Protein backbone atom coordinates (compact mmCIF):
# COMPACT_ATOMS: atom_id res chain seq x y z
CA UNK A 1 0.00 0.00 0.00
CA UNK A 2 1.50 3.31 -1.04
CA UNK A 3 1.64 6.28 1.25
CA UNK A 4 -0.91 8.92 0.34
CA UNK A 5 0.30 11.95 -1.49
CA UNK A 6 -1.62 14.52 0.57
CA UNK A 7 1.02 13.96 3.21
CA UNK A 8 3.69 16.40 2.07
CA UNK A 9 1.38 19.35 2.59
CA UNK A 10 1.55 18.94 6.34
CA UNK A 11 5.15 17.90 6.80
CA UNK A 12 6.63 21.37 7.14
CA UNK A 13 10.15 20.32 7.92
CA UNK A 14 9.25 17.48 10.29
CA UNK A 15 12.07 14.95 10.39
CA UNK A 16 11.60 11.25 10.02
CA UNK A 17 12.11 9.38 13.30
CA UNK A 18 11.24 5.95 11.99
CA UNK A 19 9.98 4.44 8.80
CA UNK A 20 7.91 1.30 8.50
CA UNK A 21 8.79 -0.30 5.20
CA UNK A 22 6.58 -2.95 3.61
CA UNK A 23 6.34 -4.84 6.88
CA UNK A 24 4.86 -8.33 6.92
CA UNK A 25 4.07 -10.05 10.20
CA UNK A 26 2.59 -13.43 11.05
CA UNK A 27 1.00 -14.89 14.19
CA UNK A 28 1.74 -18.51 13.38
CA UNK A 29 -0.04 -18.96 10.05
CA UNK A 30 -2.14 -15.82 10.36
CA UNK A 31 -0.94 -12.97 8.16
CA UNK A 32 -1.53 -10.09 10.57
CA UNK A 33 0.33 -7.23 8.84
CA UNK A 34 0.42 -7.05 5.05
CA UNK A 35 3.14 -4.91 3.51
CA UNK A 36 2.48 -2.05 5.88
CA UNK A 37 4.38 1.18 5.28
CA UNK A 38 4.19 4.42 7.18
CA UNK A 39 6.51 7.20 8.34
CA UNK A 40 6.85 8.26 11.97
CA UNK A 41 7.80 11.94 12.31
CA UNK A 42 10.08 13.20 15.02
CA UNK A 43 8.39 14.97 17.94
CA UNK A 44 4.93 14.40 16.52
CA UNK A 45 2.00 12.33 17.67
CA UNK A 46 1.08 9.63 15.18
CA UNK A 47 -2.21 7.79 15.75
CA UNK A 48 -3.26 4.40 14.44
CA UNK A 49 -7.00 3.88 14.09
CA UNK A 50 -9.14 1.08 12.74
CA UNK A 51 -11.66 -1.52 13.82
CA UNK A 52 -10.76 -4.31 16.28
CA UNK A 53 -8.43 -6.88 14.81
CA UNK A 54 -7.16 -4.59 12.06
CA UNK A 55 -3.55 -4.98 13.19
CA UNK A 56 -2.95 -1.58 14.76
CA UNK A 57 -1.76 -3.00 18.10
CA UNK A 58 0.22 -5.64 16.25
CA UNK A 59 2.03 -2.92 14.33
CA UNK A 60 2.65 -0.93 17.52
CA UNK A 61 4.12 -3.96 19.28
CA UNK A 62 6.58 -4.50 16.41
CA UNK A 63 8.27 -1.23 17.36
CA UNK A 64 9.59 -2.55 20.69
CA UNK A 65 9.81 -6.20 19.59
CA UNK A 66 7.12 -7.25 22.08
CA UNK A 67 6.21 -10.08 19.72
CA UNK A 68 9.55 -11.70 20.49
CA UNK A 69 8.18 -12.73 23.89
CA UNK A 70 5.81 -15.29 22.40
CA UNK A 71 6.64 -18.31 20.30
CA UNK A 72 5.22 -18.55 16.79
CA UNK A 73 5.36 -14.83 15.97
CA UNK A 74 7.32 -13.99 12.85
CA UNK A 75 8.55 -10.81 11.19
CA UNK A 76 8.36 -12.00 7.60
CA UNK A 77 9.62 -9.16 5.49
CA UNK A 78 10.29 -5.46 5.36
CA UNK A 79 11.21 -3.67 8.54
CA UNK A 80 11.11 -0.62 10.74
CA UNK A 81 14.04 1.70 10.19
CA UNK A 82 14.96 3.92 13.10
CA UNK A 83 16.64 7.28 12.47
CA UNK A 84 19.12 8.89 12.76
CA UNK A 85 21.17 5.68 12.89
CA UNK A 86 19.34 4.09 9.95
CA UNK A 87 19.06 0.60 11.48
CA UNK A 88 16.26 -1.89 10.97
CA UNK A 89 14.79 -2.66 14.40
CA UNK A 90 13.55 -6.02 13.23
CA UNK A 91 16.85 -7.24 11.81
CA UNK A 92 17.88 -10.57 13.35
CA UNK A 93 21.14 -9.14 14.73
CA UNK A 94 19.40 -6.38 16.69
CA UNK A 95 19.00 -7.05 20.42
CA UNK A 96 15.35 -6.54 21.40
CA UNK A 97 16.46 -5.29 24.81
CA UNK A 98 18.48 -2.52 23.13
CA UNK A 99 15.39 -1.63 21.11
CA UNK A 100 13.24 -1.45 24.24
CA UNK A 101 15.83 0.77 25.91
CA UNK A 102 15.19 3.33 23.16
CA UNK A 103 11.50 2.75 22.52
CA UNK A 104 9.33 2.58 25.62
CA UNK A 105 5.70 1.63 26.00
CA UNK A 106 2.53 2.42 27.94
CA UNK A 107 -0.12 -0.29 28.01
CA UNK A 108 -3.88 -0.43 27.69
CA UNK A 109 -4.49 -1.28 31.33
CA UNK A 110 -2.31 0.47 33.91
CA UNK A 111 0.19 -2.17 35.04
CA UNK A 112 2.27 -0.72 37.86
CA UNK A 113 4.71 -3.19 39.38
CA UNK A 114 4.07 -4.42 42.94
CA UNK A 115 6.55 -1.83 44.19
CA UNK A 116 6.51 1.66 45.64
CA UNK A 117 5.73 4.64 43.43
CA UNK A 118 9.41 5.59 43.53
CA UNK A 119 10.63 2.12 42.57
CA UNK A 120 8.09 1.88 39.77
CA UNK A 121 9.58 4.94 38.11
CA UNK A 122 13.15 3.98 38.98
CA UNK A 123 12.65 0.53 37.44
CA UNK A 124 13.63 1.47 33.91
CA UNK A 125 16.77 3.12 35.31
CA UNK A 126 17.68 0.21 37.56
CA UNK A 127 17.45 -2.26 34.68
CA UNK A 128 20.08 -0.09 33.02
CA UNK A 129 22.27 -0.53 36.06
CA UNK A 130 21.85 2.94 37.55
CA UNK A 131 22.20 2.81 41.33
CA UNK A 132 23.43 6.28 42.34
CA UNK A 133 20.84 7.50 44.84
CA UNK A 134 21.03 11.20 43.92
CA UNK A 135 20.86 10.55 40.23
CA UNK A 136 17.90 8.19 40.69
CA UNK A 137 16.12 10.75 42.87
CA UNK A 138 16.57 13.45 40.23
CA UNK A 139 15.45 11.27 37.34
CA UNK A 140 12.43 9.93 39.23
CA UNK A 141 11.37 13.44 40.18
CA UNK A 142 11.70 14.80 36.66
CA UNK A 143 9.88 11.79 35.19
CA UNK A 144 7.02 12.22 37.66
CA UNK A 145 6.90 15.93 36.84
CA UNK A 146 6.92 15.07 33.15
CA UNK A 147 3.93 12.80 33.72
CA UNK A 148 2.11 15.54 35.72
CA UNK A 149 2.04 13.31 38.78
CA UNK A 150 4.70 14.85 41.00
CA UNK A 151 2.40 17.23 42.88
CA UNK A 152 0.04 14.41 43.80
CA UNK A 153 2.63 11.87 44.94
CA UNK A 154 5.73 13.79 46.07
CA UNK A 155 4.97 13.10 49.75
CA UNK A 156 3.96 9.46 49.32
CA UNK A 157 6.71 8.03 47.10
CA UNK A 158 7.10 5.01 49.39
CA UNK A 159 3.48 3.92 48.96
CA UNK A 160 2.55 1.09 46.63
CA UNK A 161 1.85 2.13 43.06
CA UNK A 162 -1.32 0.04 43.13
CA UNK A 163 -2.80 2.37 45.78
CA UNK A 164 -3.18 5.18 43.24
CA UNK A 165 -6.36 5.77 41.26
CA UNK A 166 -6.65 4.37 37.74
CA UNK A 167 -5.72 7.63 36.04
CA UNK A 168 -2.82 8.19 38.43
CA UNK A 169 -1.61 4.64 37.83
CA UNK A 170 -1.58 5.27 34.10
CA UNK A 171 0.38 8.49 34.61
CA UNK A 172 2.74 6.49 36.83
CA UNK A 173 3.23 4.09 33.92
CA UNK A 174 3.92 7.08 31.67
CA UNK A 175 6.47 8.37 34.19
CA UNK A 176 8.05 4.90 34.23
CA UNK A 177 8.30 4.99 30.44
CA UNK A 178 9.69 8.55 30.50
CA UNK A 179 12.32 8.02 33.18
CA UNK A 180 14.88 6.47 30.87
CA UNK A 181 14.61 9.25 28.24
CA UNK A 182 13.34 7.07 25.39
CA UNK A 183 13.25 8.33 21.82
CA UNK A 184 9.78 7.00 21.08
CA UNK A 185 6.94 6.11 23.46
CA UNK A 186 4.29 3.67 22.25
CA UNK A 187 0.81 4.04 23.70
CA UNK A 188 -1.50 1.05 23.28
CA UNK A 189 -5.04 2.41 23.84
CA UNK A 190 -3.82 4.16 27.00
CA UNK A 191 -7.18 5.57 28.04
CA UNK A 192 -9.54 2.68 27.31
CA UNK A 193 -9.60 1.62 30.98
CA UNK A 194 -10.04 5.18 32.30
CA UNK A 195 -12.93 7.51 33.08
CA UNK A 196 -13.48 10.68 30.97
CA UNK A 197 -11.67 13.03 33.38
CA UNK A 198 -8.61 10.81 33.64
CA UNK A 199 -8.75 10.38 29.87
CA UNK A 200 -8.67 14.13 29.36
CA UNK A 201 -5.63 14.50 31.61
CA UNK A 202 -3.76 11.72 29.77
CA UNK A 203 -4.61 13.28 26.41
CA UNK A 204 -3.34 16.65 27.56
CA UNK A 205 -0.19 14.99 28.82
CA UNK A 206 0.42 13.26 25.50
CA UNK A 207 0.22 16.55 23.59
CA UNK A 208 2.72 18.07 26.04
CA UNK A 209 5.05 15.09 25.81
CA UNK A 210 5.72 15.50 22.12
CA UNK A 211 8.07 18.34 23.03
CA UNK A 212 10.40 15.69 24.42
CA UNK A 213 9.64 12.50 22.63
CA UNK A 214 8.08 11.01 19.51
CA UNK A 215 4.72 9.39 20.16
CA UNK A 216 2.91 6.57 18.44
CA UNK A 217 -0.57 5.87 19.80
CA UNK A 218 -3.13 3.19 19.03
CA UNK A 219 -6.66 4.25 19.80
CA UNK A 220 -10.12 2.89 19.13
CA UNK A 221 -11.49 6.32 19.80
CA UNK A 222 -11.51 8.42 16.62
CA UNK A 223 -12.23 11.64 18.47
CA UNK A 224 -9.14 11.01 20.54
CA UNK A 225 -7.03 10.56 17.42
CA UNK A 226 -8.49 13.77 16.00
CA UNK A 227 -7.82 15.70 19.22
CA UNK A 228 -4.26 14.72 19.95
CA UNK A 229 -2.50 13.42 16.86
CA UNK A 230 -0.59 15.20 14.08
CA UNK A 231 -0.69 12.22 11.72
CA UNK A 232 -3.16 9.38 11.47
CA UNK A 233 -3.01 5.98 9.84
CA UNK A 234 -6.21 4.07 9.16
CA UNK A 235 -5.72 0.31 9.14
CA UNK A 236 -8.08 -2.43 8.07
CA UNK A 237 -7.50 -6.21 7.89
CA UNK A 238 -3.78 -5.86 8.35
CA UNK A 239 -3.30 -3.23 5.68
CA UNK A 240 -2.53 0.46 5.96
CA UNK A 241 -5.49 1.85 4.03
CA UNK A 242 -4.59 5.49 4.34
CA UNK A 243 -1.99 7.57 6.11
CA UNK A 244 -1.85 11.32 6.29
CA UNK A 245 -2.03 14.52 8.27
CA UNK A 246 -4.77 14.07 10.86
CA UNK A 247 -6.89 17.02 9.70
CA UNK A 248 -6.83 15.77 6.17
CA UNK A 249 -7.72 12.19 7.18
CA UNK A 250 -10.68 13.38 9.20
CA UNK A 251 -11.92 16.19 6.95
CA UNK A 252 -11.06 15.06 3.46
CA UNK A 253 -9.99 11.41 3.35
CA UNK A 254 -8.76 10.25 -0.02
CA UNK A 255 -10.19 6.77 0.24
CA UNK A 256 -13.83 5.79 0.40
CA UNK A 257 -13.04 3.09 3.00
CA UNK A 258 -11.47 5.65 5.32
CA UNK A 259 -14.40 7.99 4.92
CA UNK A 260 -16.85 5.18 5.70
CA UNK A 261 -15.00 4.35 8.89
CA UNK A 262 -14.56 7.97 9.99
CA UNK A 263 -18.18 8.86 9.40
CA UNK A 264 -19.35 5.77 11.26
CA UNK A 265 -20.89 4.02 8.31
CA UNK A 266 -18.63 1.09 9.05
CA UNK A 267 -16.81 -0.37 12.02
Amino acid at each position, binding site marked *: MQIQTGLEAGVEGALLKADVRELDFYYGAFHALKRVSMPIYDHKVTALIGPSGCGKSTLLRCFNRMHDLY*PGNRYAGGGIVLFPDDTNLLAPGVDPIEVRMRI*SMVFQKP*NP*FPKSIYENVA*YSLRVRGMSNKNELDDRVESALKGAALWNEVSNRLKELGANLSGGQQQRLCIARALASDPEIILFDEPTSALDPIATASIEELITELKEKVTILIVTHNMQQAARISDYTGYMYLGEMVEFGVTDQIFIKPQKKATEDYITGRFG
Partner: protein
Amino acid sequence: MTASASMPSDPLPLGSGISDRLSKKASRHIKERIIEALLFAAAAFSVFVTIAIVYVLVKESWVFFETVPLSDFLFDTQWTPLFDDAHYGIMVLLSGTLTSSGVALLVAIPLGTIIAIYLSEFAGFKVREIAKPFLELLGGVPTIVYGYFALTFLTPILQKIYPDLPGFNLLSAGLVMGIMIIPYVASLSEDAMRAVPMSLREGSYAMGATRLQTALWVVTPAATSGIASAYILGISRAVGETMILAVAAGMQPNLTFNPTEPGATITSYIVQVALGDLPHGSIGYQTIFAAGLTLLLMTLAFNLLGYWLRKRFREVY
Protein backbone atom coordinates in the same frame (compact mmCIF):
# COMPACT_ATOMS: atom_id res chain seq x y z
CA MET B 1 -31.64 -36.93 36.98
CA THR B 2 -34.85 -38.95 37.06
CA ALA B 3 -36.74 -36.00 38.45
CA SER B 4 -35.84 -33.73 35.61
CA ALA B 5 -36.38 -36.48 33.07
CA SER B 6 -39.85 -37.26 34.34
CA MET B 7 -40.84 -33.61 34.60
CA PRO B 8 -42.12 -33.06 31.08
CA SER B 9 -44.16 -36.31 31.02
CA ASP B 10 -45.96 -35.47 34.27
CA PRO B 11 -49.32 -33.95 33.46
CA LEU B 12 -49.14 -30.48 34.92
CA PRO B 13 -52.17 -29.72 37.10
CA LEU B 14 -54.47 -26.93 36.00
CA GLY B 15 -53.19 -23.50 36.73
CA SER B 16 -49.76 -24.84 37.53
CA GLY B 17 -46.92 -22.52 36.71
CA ILE B 18 -43.45 -21.68 37.70
CA SER B 19 -44.52 -21.14 41.30
CA ASP B 20 -45.75 -24.72 41.70
CA ARG B 21 -42.61 -26.16 40.32
CA LEU B 22 -40.56 -24.05 42.66
CA SER B 23 -42.52 -25.13 45.74
CA LYS B 24 -40.53 -26.93 48.37
CA LYS B 25 -42.62 -30.07 47.99
CA ALA B 26 -41.36 -30.76 44.50
CA SER B 27 -39.41 -33.98 44.39
CA ARG B 28 -36.51 -32.15 42.86
CA HIS B 29 -36.20 -30.12 46.01
CA ILE B 30 -36.21 -33.19 48.22
CA LYS B 31 -33.32 -34.58 46.21
CA GLU B 32 -31.55 -31.27 46.43
CA ARG B 33 -31.98 -31.37 50.16
CA ILE B 34 -30.59 -34.87 50.43
CA ILE B 35 -27.56 -33.89 48.40
CA GLU B 36 -27.14 -30.76 50.47
CA ALA B 37 -27.29 -32.83 53.66
CA LEU B 38 -24.69 -35.25 52.30
CA LEU B 39 -22.38 -32.42 51.35
CA PHE B 40 -22.80 -30.86 54.76
CA ALA B 41 -22.11 -34.19 56.44
CA ALA B 42 -18.90 -34.61 54.46
CA ALA B 43 -17.76 -31.13 55.41
CA ALA B 44 -18.81 -31.60 59.04
CA PHE B 45 -16.96 -34.91 59.20
CA SER B 46 -13.57 -33.29 58.62
CA VAL B 47 -14.30 -30.67 61.25
CA PHE B 48 -15.43 -33.40 63.65
CA VAL B 49 -12.24 -35.41 63.11
CA THR B 50 -10.08 -32.36 63.72
CA ILE B 51 -11.92 -31.55 66.92
CA ALA B 52 -11.74 -35.19 68.04
CA ILE B 53 -7.97 -35.27 67.51
CA VAL B 54 -7.48 -32.09 69.47
CA TYR B 55 -9.79 -33.39 72.21
CA VAL B 56 -7.88 -36.66 72.59
CA LEU B 57 -4.51 -34.90 72.55
CA VAL B 58 -5.54 -32.34 75.15
CA LYS B 59 -7.28 -34.89 77.40
CA GLU B 60 -4.35 -37.31 77.41
CA SER B 61 -1.82 -34.52 77.78
CA TRP B 62 -3.82 -33.30 80.74
CA VAL B 63 -3.14 -36.63 82.48
CA PHE B 64 0.55 -36.16 81.71
CA PHE B 65 0.68 -32.61 83.01
CA GLU B 66 -1.01 -33.65 86.25
CA THR B 67 2.17 -35.57 87.07
CA VAL B 68 4.81 -33.52 85.30
CA PRO B 69 4.76 -29.75 85.87
CA LEU B 70 4.65 -27.65 82.71
CA SER B 71 7.84 -25.83 83.75
CA ASP B 72 9.77 -29.15 83.79
CA PHE B 73 8.33 -30.01 80.39
CA LEU B 74 9.42 -26.71 78.89
CA PHE B 75 12.74 -26.05 80.62
CA ASP B 76 14.29 -29.39 81.60
CA THR B 77 17.33 -30.18 79.47
CA GLN B 78 16.98 -33.95 79.57
CA TRP B 79 14.44 -36.27 78.00
CA THR B 80 14.62 -39.63 79.74
CA PRO B 81 11.01 -40.74 80.34
CA LEU B 82 11.97 -44.40 80.30
CA PHE B 83 14.68 -44.18 82.97
CA ASP B 84 14.21 -44.50 86.72
CA ASP B 85 15.40 -40.92 87.06
CA ALA B 86 12.83 -39.65 84.57
CA HIS B 87 13.17 -36.23 82.97
CA TYR B 88 10.67 -34.71 80.56
CA GLY B 89 12.36 -31.79 78.82
CA ILE B 90 10.68 -31.38 75.43
CA MET B 91 13.51 -29.01 74.44
CA VAL B 92 15.62 -32.09 73.71
CA LEU B 93 13.22 -33.44 71.11
CA LEU B 94 12.48 -29.94 69.85
CA SER B 95 16.17 -29.36 69.15
CA GLY B 96 16.22 -32.49 67.00
CA THR B 97 13.13 -31.38 65.11
CA LEU B 98 14.45 -27.85 64.58
CA THR B 99 17.91 -29.01 63.51
CA SER B 100 16.70 -31.58 61.00
CA SER B 101 14.02 -29.19 59.67
CA GLY B 102 16.60 -26.42 59.41
CA VAL B 103 18.90 -28.60 57.31
CA ALA B 104 15.96 -29.69 55.16
CA LEU B 105 14.83 -26.11 54.57
CA LEU B 106 18.36 -24.98 53.70
CA VAL B 107 18.12 -27.48 50.86
CA ALA B 108 14.48 -27.16 49.88
CA ILE B 109 13.87 -23.40 49.95
CA PRO B 110 16.76 -22.24 47.73
CA LEU B 111 16.53 -25.19 45.35
CA GLY B 112 12.74 -25.15 45.26
CA THR B 113 12.65 -21.42 44.56
CA ILE B 114 15.27 -21.64 41.83
CA ILE B 115 13.43 -24.54 40.19
CA ALA B 116 10.18 -22.58 40.37
CA ILE B 117 11.76 -19.50 38.78
CA TYR B 118 13.33 -21.62 36.06
CA LEU B 119 10.15 -23.53 35.27
CA SER B 120 7.90 -20.48 35.35
CA GLU B 121 10.09 -17.87 33.64
CA PHE B 122 12.78 -19.59 31.60
CA ALA B 123 11.77 -23.11 30.61
CA GLY B 124 10.02 -23.58 27.32
CA PHE B 125 6.62 -25.22 27.14
CA LYS B 126 8.06 -28.67 26.36
CA VAL B 127 10.67 -28.63 29.11
CA ARG B 128 8.05 -27.63 31.65
CA GLU B 129 5.61 -30.31 30.54
CA ILE B 130 8.30 -32.95 30.98
CA ALA B 131 10.02 -31.62 34.09
CA LYS B 132 6.97 -30.92 36.21
CA PRO B 133 5.60 -34.48 36.38
CA PHE B 134 9.07 -35.73 37.29
CA LEU B 135 9.33 -33.14 40.01
CA GLU B 136 5.96 -34.10 41.40
CA LEU B 137 6.97 -37.76 41.27
CA LEU B 138 9.75 -36.87 43.70
CA GLY B 139 7.04 -35.90 46.19
CA GLY B 140 5.27 -39.22 45.69
CA VAL B 141 8.19 -41.42 46.76
CA PRO B 142 7.29 -43.12 50.09
CA THR B 143 9.21 -41.51 52.94
CA ILE B 144 10.51 -44.85 54.17
CA VAL B 145 12.38 -45.14 50.87
CA TYR B 146 13.92 -41.73 51.49
CA GLY B 147 14.86 -42.91 54.98
CA TYR B 148 16.83 -45.87 53.68
CA PHE B 149 18.29 -43.71 50.94
CA ALA B 150 19.64 -41.42 53.67
CA LEU B 151 20.91 -44.24 55.85
CA THR B 152 22.49 -46.52 53.27
CA PHE B 153 23.47 -44.14 50.48
CA LEU B 154 23.91 -40.57 51.67
CA THR B 155 25.45 -41.25 55.08
CA PRO B 156 28.30 -43.38 53.66
CA ILE B 157 29.06 -40.65 51.12
CA LEU B 158 29.05 -38.00 53.83
CA GLN B 159 31.29 -40.19 55.97
CA LYS B 160 33.88 -40.15 53.21
CA ILE B 161 33.96 -36.36 53.37
CA TYR B 162 33.66 -36.20 57.14
CA PRO B 163 34.97 -39.44 58.67
CA ASP B 164 33.80 -38.71 62.24
CA LEU B 165 30.17 -38.63 61.17
CA PRO B 166 28.17 -41.27 63.08
CA GLY B 167 26.07 -43.77 61.14
CA PHE B 168 22.90 -42.16 62.43
CA ASN B 169 22.88 -38.38 62.12
CA LEU B 170 20.53 -35.47 61.65
CA LEU B 171 22.50 -34.09 58.70
CA SER B 172 21.89 -36.88 56.24
CA ALA B 173 18.26 -37.26 57.33
CA GLY B 174 17.76 -33.50 56.99
CA LEU B 175 19.35 -33.34 53.54
CA VAL B 176 17.17 -36.13 52.21
CA MET B 177 14.12 -34.58 53.86
CA GLY B 178 15.02 -31.39 51.98
CA ILE B 179 15.01 -33.28 48.69
CA MET B 180 11.63 -34.68 49.60
CA ILE B 181 10.22 -31.20 50.26
CA ILE B 182 11.60 -29.59 47.06
CA PRO B 183 8.57 -30.59 44.95
CA TYR B 184 6.13 -28.98 47.37
CA VAL B 185 8.05 -25.71 47.49
CA ALA B 186 8.83 -25.67 43.75
CA SER B 187 5.41 -26.68 42.52
CA LEU B 188 3.43 -24.24 44.67
CA SER B 189 5.89 -21.39 44.07
CA GLU B 190 5.71 -22.01 40.35
CA ASP B 191 1.91 -21.93 40.43
CA ALA B 192 2.09 -18.61 42.26
CA MET B 193 4.52 -17.17 39.71
CA ARG B 194 2.55 -18.37 36.75
CA ALA B 195 -0.53 -16.69 38.21
CA VAL B 196 1.23 -13.32 37.91
CA PRO B 197 -0.49 -11.65 34.95
CA MET B 198 1.39 -11.39 31.67
CA SER B 199 0.76 -7.63 31.63
CA LEU B 200 3.25 -7.17 34.49
CA ARG B 201 5.91 -9.14 32.63
CA GLU B 202 5.23 -7.19 29.46
CA GLY B 203 5.57 -3.97 31.42
CA SER B 204 8.94 -5.09 32.68
CA TYR B 205 10.21 -6.26 29.29
CA ALA B 206 8.98 -3.05 27.69
CA MET B 207 11.23 -1.10 30.08
CA GLY B 208 14.20 -3.01 28.66
CA ALA B 209 14.52 -5.56 31.45
CA THR B 210 16.12 -8.94 30.87
CA ARG B 211 14.40 -12.22 31.71
CA LEU B 212 16.34 -12.53 34.95
CA GLN B 213 15.52 -8.96 36.01
CA THR B 214 11.86 -9.56 35.19
CA ALA B 215 11.83 -12.85 37.11
CA LEU B 216 13.59 -11.50 40.21
CA TRP B 217 12.36 -7.92 40.38
CA VAL B 218 8.78 -8.17 39.14
CA VAL B 219 7.42 -11.72 39.05
CA THR B 220 8.85 -12.96 42.37
CA PRO B 221 7.72 -9.92 44.39
CA ALA B 222 4.30 -10.14 42.78
CA ALA B 223 4.03 -13.79 43.80
CA THR B 224 5.30 -13.24 47.37
CA SER B 225 2.18 -14.42 49.13
CA GLY B 226 1.99 -17.66 47.15
CA ILE B 227 5.70 -18.30 47.57
CA ALA B 228 5.42 -17.67 51.32
CA SER B 229 2.60 -20.23 51.55
CA ALA B 230 4.78 -22.69 49.68
CA TYR B 231 7.56 -22.17 52.21
CA ILE B 232 5.17 -22.58 55.12
CA LEU B 233 3.86 -25.83 53.67
CA GLY B 234 7.47 -26.99 53.30
CA ILE B 235 8.19 -26.12 56.93
CA SER B 236 5.10 -27.98 58.11
CA ARG B 237 6.14 -31.02 56.09
CA ALA B 238 9.65 -30.89 57.57
CA VAL B 239 8.44 -30.54 61.15
CA GLY B 240 5.93 -33.35 60.75
CA GLU B 241 8.18 -35.75 58.83
CA THR B 242 8.69 -39.02 60.72
CA MET B 243 9.99 -41.96 58.78
CA ILE B 244 13.19 -40.49 57.38
CA LEU B 245 14.23 -39.38 60.86
CA ALA B 246 13.21 -42.57 62.56
CA VAL B 247 15.29 -44.57 60.09
CA ALA B 248 18.32 -42.36 59.56
CA ALA B 249 18.71 -40.04 62.56
CA GLY B 250 19.12 -42.49 65.37
CA MET B 251 16.20 -41.85 67.78
CA GLN B 252 18.54 -40.89 70.61
CA PRO B 253 17.23 -37.89 72.52
CA ASN B 254 20.04 -35.40 72.31
CA LEU B 255 19.94 -31.70 73.13
CA THR B 256 21.99 -30.38 70.24
CA PHE B 257 21.80 -28.06 67.29
CA ASN B 258 24.74 -29.77 65.64
CA PRO B 259 23.45 -31.70 62.61
CA THR B 260 26.39 -34.07 62.56
CA GLU B 261 25.15 -35.73 65.76
CA PRO B 262 22.42 -38.31 66.07
CA GLY B 263 19.16 -37.11 67.56
CA ALA B 264 15.52 -37.83 68.14
CA THR B 265 12.76 -35.58 66.92
CA ILE B 266 9.28 -35.25 68.35
CA THR B 267 7.89 -37.43 65.60
CA SER B 268 10.50 -40.16 65.75
CA TYR B 269 10.10 -40.32 69.52
CA ILE B 270 6.35 -40.84 69.13
CA VAL B 271 6.98 -43.71 66.71
CA GLN B 272 9.46 -45.26 69.10
CA VAL B 273 7.08 -45.20 72.05
CA ALA B 274 3.96 -46.10 70.11
CA LEU B 275 5.70 -49.20 68.75
CA GLY B 276 7.40 -50.05 72.05
CA ASP B 277 6.18 -52.10 74.98
CA LEU B 278 5.29 -49.33 77.42
CA PRO B 279 2.00 -50.11 79.15
CA HIS B 280 -0.89 -47.84 78.17
CA GLY B 281 -1.71 -45.32 80.85
CA SER B 282 1.81 -45.20 82.26
CA ILE B 283 3.38 -41.77 82.47
CA GLY B 284 5.96 -42.81 79.90
CA TYR B 285 3.19 -43.61 77.46
CA GLN B 286 1.38 -40.35 78.17
CA THR B 287 4.48 -38.44 77.04
CA ILE B 288 3.61 -39.09 73.41
CA PHE B 289 0.40 -37.13 73.75
CA ALA B 290 2.22 -34.18 75.24
CA ALA B 291 4.78 -34.44 72.44
CA GLY B 292 2.00 -34.73 69.87
CA LEU B 293 0.26 -31.67 71.26
CA THR B 294 3.52 -29.72 70.99
CA LEU B 295 3.82 -30.76 67.36
CA LEU B 296 0.22 -29.78 66.65
CA LEU B 297 0.77 -26.36 68.22
CA MET B 298 3.89 -25.86 66.12
CA THR B 299 2.21 -26.68 62.84
CA LEU B 300 -0.79 -24.59 63.87
CA ALA B 301 1.54 -21.66 64.49
CA PHE B 302 3.09 -22.08 61.03
CA ASN B 303 -0.32 -22.30 59.41
CA LEU B 304 -1.40 -19.10 61.16
CA LEU B 305 1.81 -17.44 60.03
CA GLY B 306 1.12 -18.60 56.49
CA TYR B 307 -2.43 -17.25 56.67
CA TRP B 308 -1.14 -13.91 57.89
CA LEU B 309 1.53 -13.77 55.19
CA ARG B 310 -1.03 -14.55 52.50
CA LYS B 311 -3.24 -11.73 53.72
CA ARG B 312 -0.39 -9.31 54.21
CA PHE B 313 1.25 -9.78 50.82
CA ARG B 314 -1.72 -10.72 48.68
CA GLU B 315 -1.53 -8.90 45.37
CA VAL B 316 -4.66 -7.69 43.70
CA TYR B 317 -3.81 -7.67 40.02
